[in-house]
């Protein structure tokens, strides 16, 4: 009778071990949030949201330009990522072709795994080099490419989920197919598509690497979309590797703001669909 007991012990032991693994996996989350609050809370004040950075060495100042810059970059990225992503997603879901959708789906998933710094180099070669200057446009372009595969794949999967009966009902009324898609199919998939968009926004809001040599950063308000522009992650990076204690504090505070933006986007994505759908990753 000893063998069944050993087997049961092994089973319980592995249950315990895997539970331990789950705890260890969660641990960094707690540590990171604890240190964010502990180190950043003291520098989290209204200056952060309203002031420009002070010149090197002077204490105080804020990150207002970087916060606005990040929002502008996200907006520019959406101009590229949303239309192409949603239309392409509709194509993937609706096409009766076999090979092209497979290829596009595959390339989109691969593109999703391309390191963001490589996307930055691409944006540099096709936009910064011809324009001969770093610009908000180049940064938005790079972020848009990162956004594209996420929006594309989420839209595809959501459009597939729209019940055929809805489509049939609309088609039976004699409405052209394109109108059915725009007025019936897409609106009924809207919640899920918004989820995909918010997930994509959460991802690009924190991207730093592709902005290093496209948007470049700026210590002042930007002077137009063809000029370098500040971004919150860039500012955090610059402050983190600087030698000044005050800047370190501001980097932590900036990180709280950035995490806040990312979490708002992620939680909004969950609330919209109430957990009915998990987005592409």
């Amino acid at each position, binding site marked *: 009778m000893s063998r069944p007991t050993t*087997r049961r012990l092994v089973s319980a032991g592995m*249950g315990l071990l895997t539970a331990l693994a789950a705890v260890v996996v969660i641990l960094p989350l707690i*540590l990171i949030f604890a240190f964010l609050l502990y180190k950043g809370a003291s520098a989290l004040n209204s200056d952060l949201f309203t002031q420009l950075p002070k010149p090197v060495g002077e204490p105080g100042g804020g990150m207002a330009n970087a916060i606005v810059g990040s929002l502008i970059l996200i907006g520019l990225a959406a101009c590229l990522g949303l239309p192409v992503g949603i239309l392409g997603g509709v194509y993937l879901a609706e096409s009766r072709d076999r090979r092209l959708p497979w290829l596009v789906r595959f390339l989109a998933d691969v593109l999703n795994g*391309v390191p963001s710094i490589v996307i930055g180099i691409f944006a540099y070669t096709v936009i910064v080099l011809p324009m001969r200057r770093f610009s908000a446009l180049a940064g938005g372009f790079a972020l848009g490419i990162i956004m594209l595969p996420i929006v594309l794949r989420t839209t595809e999967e959501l459009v597939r989920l729209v019940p055929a009966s809805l489509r049939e009902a609309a088609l039976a009324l004699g409405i052209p*197919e394109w109108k059915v898609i725009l007025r019936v199919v897409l609106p009924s998939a809207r919640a899920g598509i918004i989820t995909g968009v918010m997930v994509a926004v959460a991802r690009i809001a924190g991207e730093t*690497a592709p902005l290093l040599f496209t948007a470049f950063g700026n210590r002042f308000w930007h002077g137009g979309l063809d000029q370098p522009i500040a971004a919150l992650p860039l500012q955090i990076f610059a402050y983190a590797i600087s030698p000044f204690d005050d800047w370190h504090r501001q980097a932590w505070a900036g990180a709280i703001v950035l995490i806040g933006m990312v979490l708002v986007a992620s939680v909004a994505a969950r609330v919209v669909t109430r957990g009915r759908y998990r987005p592409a990753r």
Partner: protein
Amino acid sequence: MSREAALRISSKTLGAGQGVGDRGFRLLTRAAALGVTALMAALVVAMAWAALPSLEAFGWRFLVTSTWDPVAETFGALPFVYGTVVSSLLALLIAVPLSLGAAIYLAELAPPWIRQPIAFLIELLAAIPSVVYGLWGIFVLAPWLRTSVQPALGTWLGFLPLFQGPPYGVGMLAAGLILAIMIVPFITAVAREVLLAVPNAQREAALALGATRWETTRMAVLRYGRSGLIGAVLLGLGRALGETMAVTMVIGNRPEIALSLFAPGYTMASVIANEFTEATSDLYLAALIEIGLLLFAVTVAVNALARLLVWSAGGGVREVRE
């Protein structure tokens, strides 16, 4: 009626789908989809074009020489390739057992009420931006390694060449650890989806034969989802290879090949991040872009393989789960 059938009826029987609007709309969506294909092609062409001076000047030697001297314009990428490979492998070594364990717990063994909250926390972890990990790495992880972990490792395991040398805090060990922390939620999430896609009949069959929960998991679930799990690990590897900011902030940024994990290193992504805007000559810039091209080729290969594996395991076919 299936969606396909409905569409067939709409276009053939009813004569819909033939109007100008329909054709135009179809062209538009097709163009958007083709745009993704064109984008990938453009990525390759533009970067290869920009890397051309370096490709011509150094050829294959670029990969196997370790001199990185912008003044003399001699460039060899070996230290960066080494740093990327070692930091990523170190990350996998730590991350794979943890994330597979956590995924198995979440998909198979955990009591149902605890699964959703933990999965949510892991998704939060995946949403933290790289630069925030880097910030935490510089000011929390690296000092902790310097004052506690590295002296201890040096005392107990110092006979191994891996754990010799002065404890800087920043270096290969810090980079591997921060990468591990970053890819764990990612591998866990994909692996969990692969496990959830394993049909219940597999579990029921094993349980019906008298297997315990763990035996069921090991023999019926893990074996069935094996290729998908390998895919999940490869997706994590792809992330680790290309991860830039956090690694740049903690690896120490010195283009040297050192056996010790305590020593500073450099990775392909971080040399691009650090030196791209400082590249003064065309050849220097081309050499950096060639590193980017190399990184691109490697991550595309890893990701392509990973996606095919995950797709074949059914993890890519996501469904609505109430």
